């Protein structure tokens, strides 16, 4: 048996105004000059004390926990512990991390073991030996799964769903480096290997695929798998053993005397629960049910809340299945390609409806719609101001299609005869010729309509 078993630990930065234990701002910490968003607390100057746990961070962590179906710990105070290890990015040389604030959730068929709240260390640049503490103290949630993930693809799916939930809750940071993942991988009951330093959702599939393959090869060749920690090398797409000493790290955890335990009341949990919007999985189900869109379309469309909301508005004006197919296939692709979101693309629901109405009325083909969309994105002009629009859509008004039909009917008399004898294929041939003549700008159905009319008449 070569079953792959994977467990994940995600660290996700929370969106809060202030850091976890002081009042330093978090906004723009990546772009700010190094060590400008700091105070004695987050640099751990002698004598500084943590201000107590940031309430907003607790709220956000609870919200995430609830969205993951976890039970929030309300029955007892949650201790904040010190995890001791020496590293230059850690100003106190210990990291404050809470005991679980929630347990026993489920996502994508994967059990969530527990959720913690902790502080992010600074950023240590190994090349220059410099540390930037702007990040030090930014709140993180740590989400730990049971080893229920069965393949790298499953891990990717789990993380896609997790990312979608984070997007809906709008309580986590989404910029690069705001999520870091550690994975435990074991195969067929052999030793477990921890892969660290996976810094993007994209990296997970690469890292896990490589690691699973590496382990399978070792097993095939009867080489024992060493229980170890390996680093993911994003550039190479490989994992590298760290050759650490045999002894396991001893973090000497103990409760931080400076931080009163976190208490979360049932009342607060209920209050936070009310703030949770319809989540992607529910929304996707509803889209399938109410708009009869395919499950795949519904899944993709509901990954981001604003996108899903946009779809719903559009689906009130446009046939939902057409809208879904276009948004999932064409719109999403073009936005992703440009690294844009619906909100900052210059597009809005109204503009998309305008475009899709043309498709719906068969005035343009979906292919042409994509061309127009590309122009709308790149030239940032309204649909009707695009020269191509005039050329494509204007084609009907000016009788260009009719003209072309006449021309083709004259030129290919044999085909006309064949059609009249009942050969459907001949009609397709004629449509093709008209399309060729109109340089693909006329919609086949429109041509079809004109042809039929003329052929009947003639």
């Amino acid at each position, binding site marked *: 048996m070569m079953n792959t078993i994977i467990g994940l630990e995600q660290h996700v930065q929370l969106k809060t105004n202030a850091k976890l234990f002081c009042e330093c701002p978090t906004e723009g910490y990546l772009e700010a000059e190094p060590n400008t968003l700091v105070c*004695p*607390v987050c*640099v*751990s*100057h*002698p*004598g*500084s*004390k*943590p*201000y*107590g746990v940031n309430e907003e961070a607790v709220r956000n962590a609870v919200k995430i926990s609830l969205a993951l179906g976890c039970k929030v710990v309300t029955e007892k105070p949650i201790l904040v512990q*010190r995890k*001791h290890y*020496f590293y*230059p990015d850690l*100003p*106190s*040389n*210990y990291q404050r991390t809470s005991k679980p604030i929630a347990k026993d959730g489920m996502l994508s068929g994967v059990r969530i073991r527990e959720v913690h709240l902790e502080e992010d260390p600074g950023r240590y640049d190994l090349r220059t030996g410099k*540390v930037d503490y702007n990040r030090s103290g930014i709140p993180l949630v740590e989400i730990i799964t049971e080893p229920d993930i069965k393949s790298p693809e499953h891990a990717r799916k789990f993380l896609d769903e997790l990312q979608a939930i984070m997007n809906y809750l709008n309580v986590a940071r989404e910029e690069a480096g705001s999520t870091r993942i550690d994975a435990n991988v074991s195969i067929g009951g052999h030793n477990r290997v921890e892969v660290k330093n996976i810094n993007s959702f994209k990296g997970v599939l690469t890292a896990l695929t490589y690691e699973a393959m590496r382990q399978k090869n070792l097993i095939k060749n009867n080489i024992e798998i060493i229980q170890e920690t390996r680093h993911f090398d994003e550039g190479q797409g490989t994992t590298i053993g760290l050759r650490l000493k045999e002894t396991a790290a*001893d973090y*000497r955890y*103990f409760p*931080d*005397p*400076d*931080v*009163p335990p976190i208490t979360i009341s049932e009342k607060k949990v209920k209050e936070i629960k009310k703030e949770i919007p319809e989540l992607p999985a529910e929304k996707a189900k509803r889209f399938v049910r109410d708009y009869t869109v395919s499950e795949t379309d519904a899944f993709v469309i509901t990954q981001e809340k604003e996108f899903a909301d946009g779809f719903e508005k559009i689906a009130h004006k446009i046939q939902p299945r057409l809208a879904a197919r276009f948004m999932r296939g064409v719109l999403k692709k073009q936005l992703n390609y440009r690294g844009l979101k619906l909100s900052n693309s210059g597009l809005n629901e109204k503009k998309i409806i305008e475009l899709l109405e043309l498709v719906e009325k068969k005035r343009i083909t979906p292919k042409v719609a994509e061309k127009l969309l590309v122009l709308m994105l790149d030239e940032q002009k309204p649909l009707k101001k695009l020269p191509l629009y005039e050329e494509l859509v204007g084609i009907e008004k000016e009788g260009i299609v009719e003209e072309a039909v006449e021309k083709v009917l004259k030129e290919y008399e044999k085909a006309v005869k064949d059609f009249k004898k009942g050969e459907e294929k001949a009609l397709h041939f004629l449509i093709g010729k008209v399309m060729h003549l109109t340089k693909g700008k006329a919609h086949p159905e429109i041509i079809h309509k004109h042809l039929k009319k003329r052929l009947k008449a003639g």
Partner: protein
Amino acid sequence: MRKGECSASGHLEEKTKVIEQKEGQLNAFLHLDFEGARKKAGEIDEKIRKKKKLGKLAGLVIAIKDNICVEGMPCTAASKMLENYVAPYNATVVEKILQEDGIIIGKTNLDEFACGSDCTKSAFKISRNPVDTERVTGGSSGGSAVAVASGMADLALGSDTGGSIRCPASFCGVVGFKPTYGLVSRYGLLDLAMSFDQIGPFSKDTYGAALLMEVISGEDPRDSVTKGTKDRDYTRLLDKTKKKLKIGIAKEFFEGCDKEVEKVVKEIIEKLGERHEILEVPLPISRYSVPIYFLNVFAEFSSAMQKYDGLKYGAFWEELNLVDAVSEVRDRTLGKEVKRRILLGTYITMKEFKDAWYTKTLKARDLMRKEFDNAFKKVDLLASPTNPSLPWKIGEKNEDPVQMYLADTLTTTANICGIPAGVVKAAFCGKLPVGVQFMGRIGEDEKVLAAMKSVEELAGRDMDDEHNNRS
């Protein structure tokens, strides 16, 4: 001052003269800031001239223990590790003192990182007891006690983790007070053991301690253990507190105590019986205060000291290898007692030994708290000697750390339980002062202060007379 009979600047100059006279012999200070003090005194005199409102501490000259941050002044904790460290911010207590027009004159000597009981473990100098310069000041806040006892400062701040204010107060014959845990913000106080540390005042008399308490206590968002603390007028409460208090004594307090210390403390307690009710209470667990205290402190201290890696501030060691750089800087700049505590604290919190040591010591701490809670159901206060012995000769207890630890047996209990405790001079043994200690319920700091004032009223005058006659 208001009447213009004296000025802040004038008063400061008097103190400056005393410092110039005595500091060379006593070594109370690690840093003096005459210039800054004169500037502040000038500002206060300006306020007087303009008839502006004056703060509660207007013109008083105050010394700060060198493990409390004063912006722009060095904060060394008497360690080579922080020899070149200048605090970039004010501790909350310092901010409050400045707001109330106190004049900060400088930073006082201590045992390195407050690890010690006699102020001989400073990396820079040994403070000397003004009563007998061959003898120790007590510690760790020895410099602050000396500054007040010798008249170099009106008031001083110390920190007390297991007696570091009360021991030197007793040895130097001044008032020293450790507030209820969480009553005074620790923001800006360098950690020794976070769940024990409190900042507190030194003064000539109880009124002075009450006054400084009034200024420095209260809730501070920058130290979350102060949450819920109310601002209180301790000077007013000093007179308003119930006149007759129930004071408990335990026979355990006198076990292992020098006979002469036992005698004078028992005498003063007997005298207190004229005004208050004295009761016997059993406190068998208090015998274990030293092991309970030190094991907890080692554990917390080892964690607190992690930050001193020579990479961010303080001493720095040029090494290519990071691990070597951190190891070297810690090895070369930290003193023996500090290293001992870090190593022991690390050991007892390691996975393999945690249950046998640290977990047990936490349980023992709980037991002791319960025992004291029970005692406080019967009495308002507990009275005891401060130290089992008189101030020893400098160098006397250097060899055996356990002997040094045992000197803290009567003061550590208050920190273990988080209760307020204060020390006031009870009498002299020969020329050496002996302080009596009172401990009270959590949050009833004013009762402790009231009992201390009783001692001053009942015994203070005869004692001074007696002392004056003798010397």
